[in-house]
């Protein structure tokens, strides 16, 4: 089995902050906007180094999305920063009309996505954002899994023409991807080859999937682990090649099963290669206050849930 080592737990949002800092140095047209969450989004170094290219919008996310759309006219590449909830649901119509339908090159960077936001509770824990964003024609949707990948994604989207939704999180999590894993928008990553079951994971669930695979291996189950960071456009090939070999799939994400990665994959498989499928995702519910670990356990979003879904899908093969 391929070994993945936690190089030191860190938060994905810090990966965004570091990526943005690098872009500040390398990309003179990159500008950043924030709705009163500079510290949370780790934008301070970019701001210190490029004060003229930073726009503090205040608690006015709708205006932020409109200003970002306008900044593209003249060639700027705006990166907006706020929590995922306020990056999507609060401003859906502004994104839809002024950014997506208008084809504007805006990078919507969203931290504190999902239930691992923790103690603030359900008002802030959005579990519907992937669904909303993937429904928008022309929107690229990325959910990065660790510090390194979030940084790589931040750098990659600056050179990609078109609107992007980049989703990442709050807590410190294992940092395990390496430069050899690479990062290409729209390309899944085969993390662990296996033959019995395909596990496709995104975001914080990728590390959980790798941990689950170790336990499953000890039980004699060889799981193939694929990381899909780009939910739209979906890398169909890597998933189809895998399920043709394994004959069953478990998808894992920190999102409602309605509208998430699992739904996209189920739709794609039903059209191309119907496959028994289990979902590790929230079950059409809101979250609540608690520590990230407690919430992941209670809402079935950790390695134990992945293992139990694998066991159940193996029976349906």
């Amino acid at each position, binding site marked *: 089995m391929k070994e993945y080592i936690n190089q030191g737990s860190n938060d994905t949002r810090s990966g965004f902050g570091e990526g943005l800092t690098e872009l500040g140095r390398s990309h003179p047209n990159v500008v950043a906007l924030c709705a009163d969450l500079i510290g949370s989004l780790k934008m301070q170094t970019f701001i210190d180094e490029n004060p003229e290219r930073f726009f503090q919008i205040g608690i006015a996310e709708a205006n932020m999305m409109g200003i970002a*759309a306008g900044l593209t*006219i*003249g*060639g700027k590449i705006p990166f907006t920063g706020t929590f995922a909830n306020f990056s999507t649901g609060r401003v859906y119509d502004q994104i839809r009309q*002024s950014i997506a339908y208008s084809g504007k090159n805006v990078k919507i960077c969203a931290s504190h996505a999902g239930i691992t936001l923790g103690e603030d509770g359900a008002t802030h824990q959005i579990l519907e954002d992937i669904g909303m964003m993937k429904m928008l024609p022309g929107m690229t949707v990325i959910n990065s899994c660790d510090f390194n990948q979030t940084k790589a994604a931040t750098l990659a989207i600056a050179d990609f023409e078109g609107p992007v939704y980049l989703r990442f999180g709050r807590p410190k999590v294992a940092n395990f991807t390496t430069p050899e894993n690479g990062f290409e928008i729209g390309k899944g990553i085969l993390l662990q080859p296996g033959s019995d079951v395909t596990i496709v994971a995104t975001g914080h669930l990728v590390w959980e999937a790798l941990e689950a695979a170790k336990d499953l291996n000890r039980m004699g189950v060889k799981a193939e682990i694929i990381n899909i960071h780009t939910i739209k456009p979906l890398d169909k090939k890597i998933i189809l090649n895998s399920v043709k070999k394994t004959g069953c799939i478990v998808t894992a994400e920190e999102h409602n099963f309605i509208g998430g990665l699992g739904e996209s994959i189920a739709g794609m498989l039903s059209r191309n290669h119907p496959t028994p499928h289990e979902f590790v995702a929230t079950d059409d519910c809101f979250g609540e206050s608690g520590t990230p670990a407690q919430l992941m356990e209670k809402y079935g979003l950790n390695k134990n849930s992945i293992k139990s879904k694998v066991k159940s899908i193996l029976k349906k093969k």
Partner: protein
Amino acid sequence: MIENHSLESITSQIRRDILRMVHKVNSGHPGGSLGCTEFFVALYFEIMKHDCAFSMNGKNEDLFFLSNGHISPVFYSTLARCGYFPVKELNTFRLINSRLQGHPTTHEGLPGIRVASGSLGQGLSVAIGAALSKKLNNDPNTVYVLMGDGELQEGQNWEALMYAAGNDVDNLIATIDLNGKQIDGSTEDVLSLGDVSDKFEAFGWDVLELKEGNSLVRIIEILNVAKSKLGNKKPVAILMKTEMGNGVSFMMHTHAWHGKAPNDEQLAIALSENKETLGDY
């Protein structure tokens, strides 16, 4: 094409275009379009420095954004009469496979449009972004935006007003079409805007008021005053009183023609009141 024609004759032709466009498809918004015809003519044929060899980035030229996208007929006719696209394309307004969608969009690649609008209250934010982009690019030109009065009921406008004043966005002129009417009746009855001038001033804007918003001379005059106020760390607003349906006797003094097209007989009357000057499309 336009040389040797007075602004008045261009205005008359654009009114005809608006009326014929909405009549043909029996839909669209003639009232607000007619009320703002003089403003569009003044802006595009007198005030703005702009290039109808359209580039999205609009560097080194003035930019215009239409926030109340439903008055697309006057926008389309103005752009076509300026030379952004062939005048005969006005014939495709609201038809399938047209670049002239019901509400303006960049999506079909119509030259002259820089953002989609229709869902109200978004244009001022976009215009602020474009104005900030100009500042970053050391581009000294001006960004104009037109908004309806009814759409001031959308909260995003007030976020944008606060931002522009708080951040010295002083290369921006926002004009508010104060026709006092919206779909369900007068703005006073639907949701009173209160004293718009006081509100804008309280938000930190330099406010100019124009009572004769259907006078070409007065519009040009006030736009020049507005331009002279730029660069003073304050955004500039023009509160422009217009008459919805202006230039067509039976469409004035009512909100009935906000989103209703004339029938054949009504069209004939309306056209008889507005001379063909540049040739109908």
